[in-house]
């Protein structure tokens, strides 16, 4: 009895989340067919998908594992650059679908590798070191990519972190990354449909992970590390699993984002972007995956809708953030909200005690 009910509850909740994503896709398709989609909104569709993936994946680290990460944009960056390099170098050599697939795979794998490199030394320690290290990681990646010159000619690959001249490249060679100017002349490949497919893939993997043996182990570490170890959980393993999965999807989101534009610059993936993604997670509710989806989508279009008051955008963000934090964190408000919700529920369902007696 109990089991069936419980299973249905989590499955139902996941289905609602997928329903929202698919519903959003259908609505946009209809609006688009009717010609009702403004160009500014249609330009936001791929970034929305990208930010949804970023928020959902960061929530795995912040909400499910319970570790603060301030460098999600860094993983987005390494994914974007590696994936875009694959896309531009393979362009015209292999079928587009294959090139695209490979660029997403490479972007995800490279970001995951960086997740491993950052995570291994930090996650073995208990304590809040991850926040500091990921913050530094994001800044280092930004500065390194900003100063990175990469190209190839008949003699092979050339790399420099000083300037284009010190690459010693033949003038007829091809520039891949041109320092602060980044990668230019990218053939735009991301579409809303690809974005939605990736959002669904991300949700499938992360929701299924959460509702599994491994996911429970990850949540138990969040709730009580000492108790988790005492029941036989290898906490380093599961911390790494969560953190690397989170990084992989940030990388995929980076590729999706990058291939939506003709150029890619490292400056885009800075501290502000990491904080913005964290804001989505906090506003949507820490540990609440569906909340991340909605918050990321709404807050990505919000600035577009608030164009007129653009100067106050960050101010509005800050106010909304504070209000929502009070709404979701303060014990008094949580208790008050619960009373109201319970009141509504008991009015809708007769015999609220039935469940407990059973």
């Amino acid at each position, binding site marked *: 009895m*109990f*089991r069936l*009910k*419980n299973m249905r509850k989590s499955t139902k909740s996941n289905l609602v989340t997928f329903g929202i994503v698919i519903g959003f896709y259908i609505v946009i398709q209809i609006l688009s067919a009717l010609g009702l989609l403004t160009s500014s909104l249609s330009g936001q569709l791929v970034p929305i998908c990208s930010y949804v993936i970023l928020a959902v994946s960061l929530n795995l680290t912040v909400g499910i594992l319970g570790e603060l990460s301030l460098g999600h944009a860094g993983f987005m960056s390494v994914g974007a650059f590696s994936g875009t390099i694959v896309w531009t170098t393979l362009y015209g050599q292999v079928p587009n679908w294959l090139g695209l697939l490979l660029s997403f795979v490479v972007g995800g794998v490279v970001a995951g590798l960086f997740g491993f490199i950052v995570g291994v030394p930090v996650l073995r320690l208990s304590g809040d070191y991850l926040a500091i290290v990921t913050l530094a990681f994001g800044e280092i990646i930004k500065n390194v990519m900003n100063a990175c010159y990469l190209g190839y000619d008949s003699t092979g690959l050339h790399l420099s972190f000083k300037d284009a001249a010190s690459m010693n490249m033949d003038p007829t060679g091809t520039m891949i990354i041109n320092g602060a100017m980044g990668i230019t002349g990218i053939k735009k490949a991301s579409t809303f449909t690809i974005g939605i497919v990736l959002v669904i893939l991300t949700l*499938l*993997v992360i929701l*299924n*992970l959460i*509702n*599994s*043996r*491994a*996911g*429970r*182990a990850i*949540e*138990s570490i*969040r*709730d*009580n590390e*000492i*108790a*988790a*170890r*005492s*029941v*036989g*959980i*290898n*906490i380093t393993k599961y911390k790494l*699993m969560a953190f690397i999965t989170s990084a992989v999807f940030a990388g995929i989101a980076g590729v999706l984002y990058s291939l939506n534009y003709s150029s890619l610059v490292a400056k885009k993936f800075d501290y502000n972007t990491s904080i913005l993604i964290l804001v989505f997670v906090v506003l949507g509710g820490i*540990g609440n995956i569906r909340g991340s989806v909605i918050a990321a989508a709404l807050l990505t279009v919000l600035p577009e809708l608030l164009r007129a008051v653009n100067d106050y955008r960050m101010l509005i963000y800050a106010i909304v953030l504070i209000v929502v934090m009070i709404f979701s964190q303060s014990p008094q408000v949580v208790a008050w909200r619960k009373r109201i919700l319970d009141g509504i529920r008991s009015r809708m369902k007769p015999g609220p005690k039935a469940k*407990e007696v*059973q």
Partner: protein
Amino acid sequence: MALLEVSNLGIAFGGLQAVAQLDLKIEKGHLYGLIGPNGAGKTTVFNMLTGVYTPTEGNIVLDGKDITGKSPDLISKAGVARTFQNIRLFNDMSVLDNVKVALHNQIRYSMWTGILRLPAYREKEHEMDREALRLLKIFDLDKEASLKASQLPYGKQRKLEIARALATNPKLLLLDEPAAGMNPNETAELMNTVRSVRDQFGIAILLIEHDMNFVMGICEEITVLDYGRVIAHGDGKSIRNNPKVIAAYLGGD
């Protein structure tokens, strides 16, 4: 050979020798008590036995295997489970999931089986649900399975900790003040439960408890610690009448 053999175990925190020269021998299926005044070092002994603290001297052998200084998760796998004096549940997880987490090394499937929802996923999850509910039922917690652990009243939280510890399929169960905060009725009920757990699972139980009726009522053998050292050892009767023990407790107050 006894199930647990502890010899010359000691630990110092800076200048403070919290436990010194501790010898313990616990046979399979025995109910064993560890008592002593506040600050005597009882919890510290549990922390060494479960790998939370690394002893500065001595060794711990479980079932012929040296587990001294091993990490807590390896010691759990070796067969030692525990509860905590200050309850440590997974508060934001359901009562059922608290037990399912502890089945981690008993019923296993890979991360990919979970992510891809392979057929083994359903099968193993059902097996876990069944097993977790069976354990919860022993402690009369099956009705609360879908509540969050933090929503349980205090006494039931203590019981959930025991159910969770049992889920790891231990050979030795360590209970740190299981009756703390319980009323006399709950305490009496817990005594029966602890006894029947020992009989049903055939495991050894080492428990710390300040409630003397509890300890004398169910433990076959008792060790008394004071200032980190053993001052007495024997059955309930000999402990009760031991002048050193009486002095330690009176002095402690």
